């Protein structure tokens, strides 16, 4: 019992550590792929780690008008994102604390991080901060209903909202590929793009005021605070990639009782899938242009429509099955 407990605890710790470790790499892959496709040299794959390290070693400048909230927010945001990322089954489905938060709670944890970030953006009292915060919250109102529909489809299929349970279900029934799930996948990808401030919703590399969202909120941050926020955004990317993998490509994932060997295989598979996903993201980002902010409802609306269609089709197929 105790040995088992320690092993389980270690596995959970591994996941927490792994997501943190892989995150900058995944971002590096995205950037690298984009650079290569644009025929640029591009930064090295490990540039993410260097960025963080650089930021950590710089002095932090805090605006005069900032309050304690401004300084406390980065570590909280980071912690919330990190915990959320650690709760998504990555290499194994039955990790020790997977049960603590289901997919609804997971989305809410990210929501809490987002709200804190938006508040932090408004703390200094500049026009850019407010601009970023207001747009961020608007995008969230578009993405969350779509996310809810996706969750509903999954819950309908798997009969549970625990991510591990959904993953187990799809591992057990790999052939259950249905149109509804395909639609959900597209919807989830769109939501993930919106949530991670990726093109076409936002451009993480620009500081053009008309189009900024995420960057506008964190404009006043520097030094270690900025490092934490950047790290949090890396983690979020990993989280969503893991989520996509967990839900739609769970093959290779170790079941709860797999033991060390199974976990090792699962870990390799997960990292591989993650990096592949990151590469795909890079390809996507170079092949599409950033949208105007107020065209976003249409774009994210597609996710909503697909999510809704997915459910209706799921009802239909259930009707056929029964």
């Amino acid at each position, binding site marked *: 019992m105790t040995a088992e407990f320690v092993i389980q605890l270690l596995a959970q710790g591994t996941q927490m550590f792994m997501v943190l470790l892989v995150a900058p790499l995944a971002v590096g892959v995205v950037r690298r792929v984009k650079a290569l496709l644009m025929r640029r040299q591009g930064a090295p794959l490990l540039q993410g780690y260097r960025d963080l390290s650089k930021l*950590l070693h710089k002095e932090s400048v805090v605006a005069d008008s900032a309050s304690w909230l401004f300084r406390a927010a980065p570590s*909280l945001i980071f*912690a919330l994102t990190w915990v959320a990322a650690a709760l998504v089954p990555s290499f194994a489905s039955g990790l020790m604390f997977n049960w603590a938060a289901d997919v609804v709670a997971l989305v809410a944890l990210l*929501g809490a991080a987002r*709200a804190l970030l938006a508040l932090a953006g408004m703390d200094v009292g500049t026009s850019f901060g407010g601009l970023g915060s207001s747009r961020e*919250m608007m995008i969230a109102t578009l993405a969350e209903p779509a996310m809810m529909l996706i969750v*509903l489809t999954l819950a309908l299929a798997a009969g*549970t909202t625990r991510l591990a349970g959904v993953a187990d279900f799809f591992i057990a029934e790999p052939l259950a590929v249905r149109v509804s799930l395909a639609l959900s996948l597209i919807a989830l990808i769109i939501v993930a793009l919106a949530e991670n401030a990726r093109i076409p919703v936002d451009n993480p590399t620009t500081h053009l005021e008309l189009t900024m969202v995420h960057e506008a909120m964190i404009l006043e941050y520097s030094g270690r605070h900025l*490092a934490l926020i950047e790290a949090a955004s890396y983690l979020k990317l990993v989280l969503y990639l893991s989520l996509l993998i967990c839900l739609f490509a769970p093959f290779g994932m170790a079941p709860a009782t797999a033991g060390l060997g199974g976990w090792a295989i699962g870990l390799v598979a997960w990292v591989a899938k993650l990096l592949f996903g990151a590469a795909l993201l890079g390809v996507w980002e170079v092949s599409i242009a950033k949208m105007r902010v107020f065209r976003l409802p249409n774009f994210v609306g597609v996710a909503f429509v697909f999510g809704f269609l997915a459910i209706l089709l799921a009802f239909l197929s259930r009707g056929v099955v029964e």
Partner: protein
Amino acid sequence: MPDLFVQGAALGALVFAAALAAVVRGPALAIVYPIAAVAAVALGVVDLGVLLQGGVLTARLPIGLPMIGFHLRLDSLSAFFGIVINGGVLATSLYGMGLDRVKDLTPRVEPLFPLFAAAMNLVLLADDAYAFLFSWELMSLASWALVVARHTSIDSRRAGHLYLVMAAIGTMALIFAFGGLAGPSGGYAFDTIRAHAPGPMIAVLVLTAALVGCGSKGGLIPLHAWLPLAHPAAPSHVSALMSGVMTKVAIYGFMRIAFDLLGPPAWWWSLPPIILGVITAVLGLLYAVFDGDLKRVLAYSTVENVGVIFVALGLALAFRANHQDAAAAVAMAAALLHILNHSWFKSLLFLGAGAVLHATGRRDLAGLGGLIHRMPRTAVFFLIGALSISALPPLNGFVSEWLLFQSVLAAPAMPQTTLNFASPAIGAMLALAAALAAACFVRVYGIAFLGRPRSEEAAHAHEVPLIQQVAMGGLALLCILGGLFGAVIVAGLAPVLTALVGSGLPNSGAGPTPFSLIAFNAARSVYDAPVIALFVAIASLTTLAVVHRLSERRTRRGPAWDCGFPDPSPTTQYTASSFAQPLRRVYGAALFSARESVVMPPPGDTRPARFSVTLVDVVWATLYARPGRAVLRLSERLNALQFLSIRRYLVLMFAALVILLSIATVMT
């Protein structure tokens, strides 16, 4: 039975306090708040005892209409609501104790405060239609008087008028509801009603009437219009009571009728509450997001929360009609928990708004800002309230939200296609509401408390007295504890759940930890707030430790960067209106006919450019303004009858006579 005596004594104390305050003047008026606080504690303790120990207390007083009597009954449902109410009364009384004894007290408010509290408690105790409506209307009347306390303001008077008229409409609807339940023979006692379930036709009418009656008091759109006017018009601690607590009494009324008196439900009863609830939830928040008055935003947010609760109740009805007890329990638990949670954080927020109003003298967001520096404690409490109401974990708002989503996720398991197809829409709209709530409260908090002060008053705000901080702090603490230990609260609600839907949630032993909240079963859905909070705490402490060790620790203060063009004027900050702009563009055009217009003078013209926004409240325009005008126009037309000549009056008389005679000729 002795418990009922305690309740009676506490209610008596409240009435006594009201009577006392009606005769004393000046600082002595402050006496009502300690009395109200003590009475609230006594009432709450009795309620808690009844809730935890189970059992039903009844009494019959020989007052009221003799053929009905005045039946009192304290069962688990009313005990639960009693806790909600008296918690709010306690907090607002504490806040009231911090009011300035010279400036703030007035015989227009203090005598009515305990009366209002007593009336709300009496509604819960009522066990016959007369006692119920009597207390209900007394509650409206007392709160009306509180709304018009600032009687020299035309806004207060308008709000009061609209409020009491809407309350009267609601009461009329409830009179119908109880009339239908009681039947032609007049069995007004709830026991009699329970024994004789009405037929399906009557049940529909009763349900509709109950929805109108309770919806108008609770603020279901389109019956909400009074609420954002009346709640802010009252003194802040009364606003807290009206918004945080009185709306719950409305919900109690609906639950009492729909789940207790009306007998076994049909599945489609659930549709009106769900549809109205969903509309209310989303529209309420959109109203809130577009509004620029702190207290009105909070009032609109109350509208939203009432909508959410009605959705949960509707789902519970549907599940119950389909005999899916576990799912019904989840939906009902969501409703009950949200009722409790909302009473906490909405009271907290209104008290916070009161603190802001007291400190700055303004409640328009355009004049606030930077209060986190001048009112640090209030800012912390308000932040907790804002995050709670945005349904963010690990605070309490999320617990009920989570349960609600779980019940929506279970809706496809019902056999009715309508409900199946509705479930994704419900889920999506609730998610939209949740996201909008976050946006709304980020906006409120960001504009009012963060940033830089936008007015002199805000720049010189001051913290409120300690006792008021205690009131807010207590509520904030409840929000945190309720978030962490929601499972414990839900376990405590088991008697209510069993009484209303036949079963409770799985008990806490079924989950991985004693504090796991479980919907259906542990394999299906679990939310364990303490574990997550622990994780977050560990993660942030680890982060802090690591960052502390690894990083450069120096921090420098300097002017804001702002892309290199910082402007010292606070007017360059984002305002409440500009924050709402993205949402207005996305949602406002269709629902509010939002129009933005820019007047840009040509180069060389020295006039300033002007930007203006117009929003049209379609509900108000069609359902309030138009009928109001119609009544006035019709009354103008009819008024001609006041100025007829005597001969014409004789013509009327003659016509009446001849018509009646003709009818008598035709009829046999």
